[in-house]
């Protein structure tokens, strides 16, 4: 019961805090334009240009290609393209961790699906007569092995690289080592817990117990692993490891937001609204006059 509670609570908090963070960024005040080219959505300017290359640009429609934008997003989310292009040695280990996490997320979903299937009488095993059971089984095996291996190695190597790289060492705080160690500990206990049964039958049984709040005799290792994963899931969104939230905003609302403030545009409405705001704080240098009192 206690472990079930941890599992549910940590997932809930992970999602809740992440969504809250995203909400906080989404409702931040309108900022000045800070786009940086190339902006992938610029249709017709694939060389890195923009609508500003046109004479009388304001009199022409600003055409955007959401396909290119989404394609860049996909490359960034699933392949960490910018790191691949600009720092290949680091990419290998960072990508191992991130890809491993994606596989583990898929594996977790497959474990839940497998557990629910078994609770409904469908055998999830190599000798299952059900295609569904076979599919879940083999996908669980593949995602589980790849995910645990990649993420554990990735987090371990990231930690070691920070520890031994002369430059990174200077900039890494103890907290940042702790972040990587927490990930590694949660993953490594996962390897120890589930690694002895690569059919993941035991994992499915534990998952079924967790999902249904069924008390079960958990070993010390299973307990430790579930607690560590729980702590990790709650900690990640409160730390800078929540960059999966921030990254959306850095690209979409800062680097790729080049929507001009033209008459009748949505941006114009936002600018209009923002212009009524009077700050409660003001700067103190002699050349600065205090903001005017609202009329």
């Amino acid at each position: 019961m206690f472990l079930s509670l941890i599992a549910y609570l940590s997932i809930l908090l992970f999602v809740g805090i992440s969504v809250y963070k995203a909400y906080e960024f989404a409702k931040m005040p309108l900022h000045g334009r800070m786009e940086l080219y190339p902006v992938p959505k610029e249709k017709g300017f694939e060389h890195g240009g923009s609508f500003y290359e046109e004479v009388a640009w304001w009199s022409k429609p600003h055409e955007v290609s959401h396909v290119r934008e989404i394609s860049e997003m996909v490359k960034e989310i699933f392949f960490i393209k910018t790191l691949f292009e600009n720092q290949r040695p680091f990419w290998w280990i960072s990508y191992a961790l991130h890809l491993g996490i994606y596989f583990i997320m898929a594996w977790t979903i497959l474990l839940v699906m497998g557990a629910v299937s078994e609770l409904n009488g469908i055998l999830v095993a190599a000798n299952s007569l059900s295609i569904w059971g076979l599919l879940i089984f083999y996908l669980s095996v593949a995602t589980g092995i790849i995910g645990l291996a990649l993420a554990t190695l990735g987090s371990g190597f990231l930690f070691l690289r920070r520890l031994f790289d002369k430059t990174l060492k200077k900039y890494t705080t103890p907290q940042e080592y702790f972040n990587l160690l927490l990930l590694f500990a949660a993953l490594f206990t996962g390897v120890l817990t589930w690694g002895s049964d690569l059919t993941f039958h035991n994992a499915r049984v534990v998952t079924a117990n967790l999902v249904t709040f069924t008390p079960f005799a958990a070993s010390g290792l299973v307990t430790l692993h579930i607690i560590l994963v729980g702590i990790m899931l709650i900690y990640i969104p409160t730390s800078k490891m929540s960059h999966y939230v921030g990254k959306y905003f850095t690209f979409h609302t800062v680097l790729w937001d080049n929507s001009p403030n033209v008459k009748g545009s949505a941006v114009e409405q936002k600018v209009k609204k923002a212009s009524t705001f009077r700050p409660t704080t003001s700067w103190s240098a002699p050349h600065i006059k205090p903001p005017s009192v609202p009329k």
Partner: protein
Amino acid sequence: MINQKDLRPKDMGRSDEQLIKLELDQFMPLLAPYDKPGMEPPLTDPKPAWKEKYCTSLDGYVGIDTLVRPKSKEEEDEFVRKFLSGLEKIFSDANNGVLEPLLLTFEYCAKCNTCSEACHIYKATGDNELYRPIYRSEVLRKIMKKYFTPSGKLLGGFVGADIDVNWETIARLGELAYRCNLCRRCAQTCPLGLDNAILTKEIRKIFSQEMGIAPTPLHTKGTMLQIKTGSSTGLSKPAFLDTLEFLEEDTEEKFGIKLKFPVDKKGADILVLHNAGEFMAWPENPVAFAILFDAAGLNWTLSSEIMGYDSVNYGLWYDDYQAKQIALMQMKVAKDFGVNRIVVAECGHAHKASMVVGDRMAYGDAKIPVESCLPLLWDMVKSKRLILDPSKNNFPVTLHDPCNVVRQLGIVEPQRNVLKAICPQFREMTPHGVDNYCCGGGSGFAIMNSQNFPQFRDQVASRMKFNQILGAFQDTIEDASIPKYICAPCSNCKGAMRAILEHYEVTEKFNVQYGGLVELMVNALVSMKKPFLEFLE
């Protein structure tokens, strides 16, 4: 003094007289013919008097000539207090216009160090730790954490709040904010989309907007002078009109062209905004614009109103308050004038100020469309409104991409299309376009000439660009009989080019010239009876 390789962010608080010393032999080597011994002037130490008066304790250079040492403990404490007060304010509603990008960059840096390889100053100095883009950001984070975050107050060094904060720390950080050109090339490579230039600019802002400290060429003789007189050059309306008259006479005398600058012309379609520095330093540029616009039959005018004849906005580099004041004043002049559009001439930061930064400072009828001169110039060539003879420009030409025009506005092709059409020996620099390197004059460096700062600009900040120039002209560089032209369609970039060429005596020794785009276009006009470019005579 510390060996730069051992430098850590928390060392900014050390009591050393000078944190690091730059050594020429550690720098990125220059290309031929500047790879030979004796071709590069040596670096010099700061004068003892400067050490007593200014902050030379960072790397020996003085960027902020108004940052003077305190005379008492009280002054020292007040200096630190003001900085901390400003630091708190950049995260408050006083800073709404930057808050979201600032918070994102402040919070999420994974310190993967990808940005370092993109920085021309870091690479030029042979990977000097002090100029690593995340170095300065990390110092700022440490101070912020130490004073303003619960985790920093509770956990101290565990979360990185392990820096001593004293006058030296803050003054060095202020100086360090003027060792970055704000070119944002590093931001292009960040896997998380973060931007160290934002943090650099915020440090400059705290110094200016809270502490009243900014380099004289940017503030007192920059934005303040512009707000007072209409131009950062101090050019008054009568002097401006006199200058135009002189240029008209000079053009007729030199080229036999009866030029008449339209000034305050009612019913004009276009208001052309020049960087007023052009009239003083490179008058051939506004003359060339006038010749081309007349030849293309455009209905245009200049303004003689205060704020109407100088497109610059130095506020962009250090002070949002000043930037906004100037941008709004310039907008109002154009609006009152009744033109249909503003065309920004060859000035990169003025492009950014009026088209991007100023874009959300007003709305509705207070605004007037602004466009770059570059698409318009290409349109004149493409539509054959100008009769051009490319053989008149038959010498090596390369193009410098101003960061503000290319990386920050996405105007990449028009200028190179013009050059491809009118310069048979045009060749690109490597890299170019949105991947270009800053000229080294960006964010105010081009006009910051106090104490020994020009040496830092010319030998460090402009070093990568100088190598790019040498690289582009490798085939002919040592043949002084062949003129070689750097096309830099931006006033500040031209200022940096002028400084590089003078510092290394490149024009004198190797006949490397520089100028804008319009000068090349006028030179190629079939109607020109003699070369417009003086070095061809």
